[in-house]
Structure formats: C-alpha cells, structure tokens
C-alpha cells in the first residue's frame, strides 16, 4: 500500500510541528523515521492515522484520503502509545476484543499468537492481570502484537523499541523484517535508536522541526555513518 503526503502542515500555536511538501512511501517499503525530541515524528504518525487535524494538506493511503473515509482502518495497524490499549481488560481479553471486532475467529487469533509467543516471553498472554498492571515493556509488546494481528497492509509503530529488554528488541526487529518480507506490507517505524532503525529499514527519513530534511537510502546499512554524523554520536 503506497502512502503519499502532500502539502501537509500542522502547527500548535506558533510552533510548526509538521511541514512536509511532498513525501511518498512506496508499497512494501520499510521506512525508519528518526529525529530529535519534538521533531514531529509522533505528530506525523497521528496525522497519518487521522487522530489530529492537519492545518493543510492530505495523507493518501493508496487512493484513500485518511481524513475523508474510514476504509483505510481495515488495512492499517498502529501503536503509538498506551492510549491505544483498554487498560481494564486483561491482555487476552484485549487481543480477543481486537480480533473479534475485526471478524477474526478464535483459531485465526491463536495461530497468529503462536508466532509471537517468543516475543511475548510468556509475560503477556495467559496472565490474570489487567493491562494497567503490566510493565511498560509488556504494554508495548501487547500494543505491537495487537497492531500486527490483523495482518495490516500498513503498519505504523511509534518508538517500538522503547521499554523493551534487549532480547525483545532483537525479537521485534526479526518480526518486523519477516512480516515485511512475508506480506509486502508498508511499515513505518520511528525510533531514537539509530542502530536498530538502520538494521531493519532500507530507507530512513530524518525529521527536524517538522520537516523531512534528509531521505536516506540504506540498503547496506550505509545510513548509519550519515546519521551518526548528523546527531554527533
């Protein structure tokens, strides 16, 4: 699924949060979005998910303007923060809820979850705990798994490596790469972790003050030098 951004602008008072003339993410592409705090990464994702109103411009998923219909929600999975989770459900109930409202059977769900058992490390599903009592890392895992469960054609994850332990960070990298290869889904990932982003994303966009200032090809991990130089790591 191709994503196209045209003349997209969002300001909060005087501050310009996002200002992108034109940007295209090709179908099946895995794009990493990097930038300092306040660069506009989460705002851009929220605009793409129609969670905030753009001052000008539009986001197209395929030929669908996300602000005009809800069709795109059928093929889009996303996890931005824990406001995506219903915290008085248990993880199993939440996953069942997501599956059932999307018309998935119990069997489909169980088959899907079997692939993610290692990532969840037995600490998410099968617990008699409410989501609000999970650790930040386990909430993150649950949000990511729920976003991927419906086999979306577009997957948007904001800071997916946050709160995760090293083995879970490694696991999510493998899961995202494999998911991209198996399904041809378009994946957008924002992160402060340059190493992880460079490892999994063949294309990286550098965002500062709401503007995409660099669009870096990264087929052989060559972007790391440029990014480290920019961020003075």
């Amino acid at each position: 699924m191709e994503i196209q951004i045209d003349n997209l602008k969002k300001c909060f008072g005087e501050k310009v949060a996002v200002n992108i003339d034109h940007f295209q993410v090709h179908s099946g592409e895995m794009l990493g979005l990097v930038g300092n705090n306040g660069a506009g990464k989460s705002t851009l994702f929220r605009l793409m998910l129609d969670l905030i109103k753009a001052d000008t411009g539009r986001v197209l998923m395929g030929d669908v303007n996300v602000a005009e219909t809800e069709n795109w929600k059928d093929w889009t999975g996303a996890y931005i923060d824990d406001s995506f989770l219903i915290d008085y459900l248990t993880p199993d109930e939440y996953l069942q809820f997501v599956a059932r409202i999307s018309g998935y059977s119990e069997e489909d769900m169980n088959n899907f979850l079997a692939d993610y058992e290692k990532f969840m490390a037995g600490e998410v599903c099968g617990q008699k705990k409410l989501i609000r009592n999970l650790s930040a890392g386990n909430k993150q895992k649950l949000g990511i798994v729920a976003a991927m469960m419906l086999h979306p054609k577009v997957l948007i994850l904001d800071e997916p490596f946050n709160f995760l332990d090293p083995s879970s960070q490694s696991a999510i990298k493998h899961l995202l790469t494999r998911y991209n290869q198996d399904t041809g889904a378009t994946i957008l990932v924002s992160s402060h972790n340059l190493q992880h982003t460079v490892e999994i994303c063949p294309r990286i966009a550098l965002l500062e003050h709401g503007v995409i200032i660099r669009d870096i090809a990264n087929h052989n991990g060559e972007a790391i030098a440029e990014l480290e130089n920019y961020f003075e790591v």
Partner: protein
Amino acid sequence: MTKYQLYKLIRRNDELKDERHPMFDRNRFMKFLAIFMWLYEAAILVFMGVLLPSGFRGMYNGVSAFHVLDGFVLYLLMCDFWMRFFFQETPAQKGRPYALLPIRRSFLMHIYLSKTALNWGNLFWFFFLVPFGLIAIVPLLGWWAFILWLAGWWLLIVFDAYLYLYARTLVSKSIFWLLLPLAIHVGLLFLMLWPKENILDIPLTELMYQYTVGNPLVFLATLLIIALAYWACYRQQMRMVYNEVAQKEEVEMKNTSQMVFLNRYGALGEYLKLEMKMRLRNKTVRTSFLMLLAIMLFFCTVSYFSDAYSGAFMKSFICLYNYVVLGMTMLISIMCHEGNYIDGLMSRRESILKLLYAKFYFNSAILLLPFLLLLPLMISGKMSVWMNLGYMFFTAGVLYPICFQMAVYNKETLPLNTKVTGKQGNWMQQVVSMVMLFLPIGIEKIATLLLGDPWGFILLILLGFIGLALHKYWLLNIYQRFMQRRYVNMEGFRASRGS
C-alpha cells in the same frame, strides 16, 4: 527554604493545580454557576439565621432561641459531614506529587492536616450562625458570649472535618466503610427521634452553653478531642501516602469472566462486554454505580414501608428518579471514560458507532433493575404499573436520545480508577440532567390534565416506543456528528487525560 516559605509554595501549587486544569478556561459557565450557587446558598443561610431566632423563641416556654438551636447541633454537623463528600480531597491524594521530593513527609502531612482545620469552607455555616447569634445571643448574653459561642461551633465543625477525613480515607479503600458513618448517624438520629424525650438534647444544649460562658475545661476538652482526631488522621494518612505513591491494585485477578453469552452478537457483543467490564473493573465507575443502587434501594424501601413519599409529585419523582439515575449518571459523561483509550477506538473502523449501540442496549437493559426494585410497590398498589411503564419506556426512547447527544460534545477524559473531586460537569451536562429529571413529569402532568389518567403515562409509553423504533437513525446521526467534531473532541480527551 524556611518551613513557612515551603508552606506558602505548597499552597500556591495547590491553587495553580486548579487554575491550570485543562478544563478551567473551557468551563466558564460552570464557574459562574458555582459562584452563583455558593452565593445563593449563603443568602439562604443568612435568611434562615435572621428568621429562625423569632421562630425558635416561641417554640418552648422559657427556652431561649439559641438553646433551641443548640439542640440541633448534631443535625447540622451530620449535614456538614455528608456535604464534604462533594468537596474535600484527602491529604494523601494531594501529597502525591511531593512524595519523591526532599520534603519531610510528616511536615507535608502536618501542612495538609492544618489546612483542613483552617479551611475557609469550615466557616460556611457562619452565614447562618453569625446573624442567628447576633439576634439571639448578643442581646441576652453580650458580645463576648457570642464570640465564644461561635468559637465552640467552629471547633465542632473542625472536629467534623477530621472525622470526615478519617471516614473518607476508609471509604476510598472500600465503599462498604460508608456503612460506618451511616450506622453512627442513624444511631444518633434514633436516639434523638425515637424516645419521647430526646436524650441527647440536654447534654448538647449544656455543652453549647458552656462554650457561651467560656468554660475553659470544656474548650480544653474539645481541643483535646480534636487533637486526638488529628493524631488519628495523621497516622492514617501517613500510611495512605505509601499506598498512593505505590498505587497498585490487587495485581492478580481472581475472576476474569468471559461473558460468553455475548459472543453470539459478534462485534456488538464485544462492545457490550467492554461496557460491562468498564463498570465492574474500575473503582470510580463501580463505586458510583453501587452508591446509586443504594439510593434507589433506600427510596424503594422507604416508599414501601412508610408514607413518606406518598404525595403525587414525590411518587412520580421517586419512580422517575429510579429509572433515570443509572443511565443519566453514566450517559451525561458519555465518551468521557473512553477518552482514556480514544486513540485505540478511533483507529478502528466505525468502532464509535458500535460502542454507541452497545451503550444504548446496555443502558436500556439495565432499566429492568429499577422495574424489579419497584415491583413490590406496584404489587402493593402504592405505585401504578402505568407510571412505571411510562417512565421506563420514556427513559429508553426519549431521555436516552437526549442524553446521547452529549457524545458529540463531551471532550473531557474522566479517570476510570481514581477518585474525581469537584468535577461538576459543564453547563450542557447540567441542562441535560435537569431536562431528564423534569421533562417526563412535565409532559405526563400536562397530558393527564388534558386527557385524564392514565393517558399521561400512555403518552410517555408511545413516545418511548417511537424513540426505540428509531434508535438506529438517531444513533447514526449522533455518530456522524461525533465524527465531524472528532478532532476537537480527541484533542480535549488527550489534554485532560491524567489531569
């Protein structure tokens, strides 16, 4: 920084907490209404304070007006106690932001407990007591007695504030602790009302008289009792601070009901489960539900066993209240609890529409609960079946559509699991509440006047049926208008989340 500077800083922070609340500027009408209501209540108290001395004077031969009032001291203190549930926060909740700062916890607690005593709110009853005392005491005993009498009242009100604090903290652990003050107050009322001679009358009057004559031992004893209450609150609050800082409810759930009977309804069934689990698993929502249920039960019991509410208007009001109150309390703030996870809902297609359906079906089904509670009254002939059916169908078919309109306009997230103090809703919510409580009675009374009994209730049933039959259309309309306003609402929900 000196302790006094720290005290001033904390006081300033408390003021800023209110002033900088995201909803503060958006709720000008409520601020105006709150000030208006405050002035109105103060005016009523002053009015009563001026009128009652002459009324009391003739009540008992040879008993002066202030002695009569002093006999009512417990009533006033009980009233003061229960009113505090609407306004007063516990220090443990207030002290949470400072818990990890280098401020002695005990010092912080002493600040908040002292503020409990020195709060201006404790003087609210003085709008009544001052004019009363000026008329009833000054001419008889002089200014000094008047001042001492007021000081006595103030000390008793401060004692009441600490009693409330202790009880409120227990209630925050479990709603059943509410039974403790309730039992004590019922017991006191029993002692005052049941025997032919009010056995508390003489000791209370004597106590108040001793204040008036400035008996130092009585003042000392009162101060000692307040000190004991302060100490008890201090110990309790210090224990509570640790719980507030490491606030974690029981982590392991004993029972996670799957509600499989709802699976047959597909996606709608899932939203119905969500609605039910929201009420069962979130302390704020659950407590509010249980309290309303207790009030409903109280009204039904009193109506069944006595003639206290046997007047035509009160009967109508009790019946309507029972049908309206559960739905009204939740639906007035419809979507406000969902504000906690609005992004998740909004990223799924038409989830809000399905949620609205679930809310409507759930709240309609729950109307069977008041019907069952009122059944004994119907069987005993104390309340007509037509009245019950009329209010039940009118609630589902007409009042709910009115209440559901708030889904379009509500944009303030309400916490699910923590206590909300002083959030009174916006002007629109207040207007809808008034409409829900008085529109049906108005329509019924006019229709009965024009058409006779029971046609007023039959009209309510018919109107209710029309609303029920059209529910798919008005729910869709509300959903479409919600979607038109979605950005404004989502921004509001995000801004007020966790505040």
